[in-house]
């Protein structure tokens, strides 16, 4: 088998197995990130009484770590095989904020860093807050009809 044949053979195999392999890696890495979050929660709940705040601080810590790894250039290497495993957890959001911000540094802190920061975070915040308002309107109407307000 020459080199060209081998590449064709390898690509063929890669196509067939990539989806399953991607899913397995996504499952393992995504699960592990959530486990780290869970462990952080256990640490924080020793001094925080409110469960929601402890989970929130655990997420903030993951945002910090994901941004740090992005800055060090390690996040992309990890994300290459983790795929959705690093995208779906809050780490993916943190990376989507930090990475364009760092990329934009060469264009300055206003047009570069601060603008680029919202390339992906912007849509998430826009549609997140919009859907929360729609939900709020429905919930409010429901509460009025139910006579709770």
């Amino acid at each position: 088998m020459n080199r060209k044949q081998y590449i064709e053979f390898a690509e063929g195999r890669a196509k067939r197995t990539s989806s399953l392999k991607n899913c397995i890696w996504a499952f393992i890495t995504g699960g592990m990130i959530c486990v780290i979050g869970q462990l952080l929660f256990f640490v924080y709940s020793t001094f925080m009484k409110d469960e929601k705040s402890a989970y929130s601080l655990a997420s903030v810590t993951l945002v910090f770590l994901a941004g740090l790894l992005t800055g060090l250039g390690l996040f992309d290497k990890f994300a290459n095989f983790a795929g959705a495993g690093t995208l779906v957890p809050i780490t993916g959001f943190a990376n989507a904020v930090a990475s364009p911000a760092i990329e934009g540094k060469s264009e300055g802190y206003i047009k570069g860093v601060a603008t680029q920061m919202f390339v992906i975070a912007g849509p998430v915040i826009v549609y997140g807050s919009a859907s929360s308002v729609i939900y709020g309107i429905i919930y409010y109407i429901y509460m009025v009809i139910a006579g709770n307000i």
Partner: protein
Amino acid sequence: MQIDYLLILKAFLIGGILCVIAQILIDKTKLTPAYILVGYVCSGVLLNGLGIYPKLVKWAGAGATVPLTGFGNTLAEGVKQAIEKDGAFGIIYGGISATAAGITAAILFALLWSILFKSKNK
């Protein structure tokens, strides 16, 4: 410190499954990561409205709060509580105020990293 080992296992399971769903969407459709993130946040809001996500948070802990659907769930939860407290005005501030920690952290840390680090691509 109290460590609930079963909860760790459940967090792994649910967190993993939520990532696999996104991976299948990426592999089988042409959705870009930005669409996945937006879709997950909006799904989180919807699943909270259906009463499913709060149960999932109770069952799987960080497995439900760490994925971006958890962000949507927090948005929805915040709106509900704000409406119960302040009526209609809560519709407009509930969501973002409940998620303020995550959003501010992401912005502030990104600014910090952009000061400290240089792009590795150039």
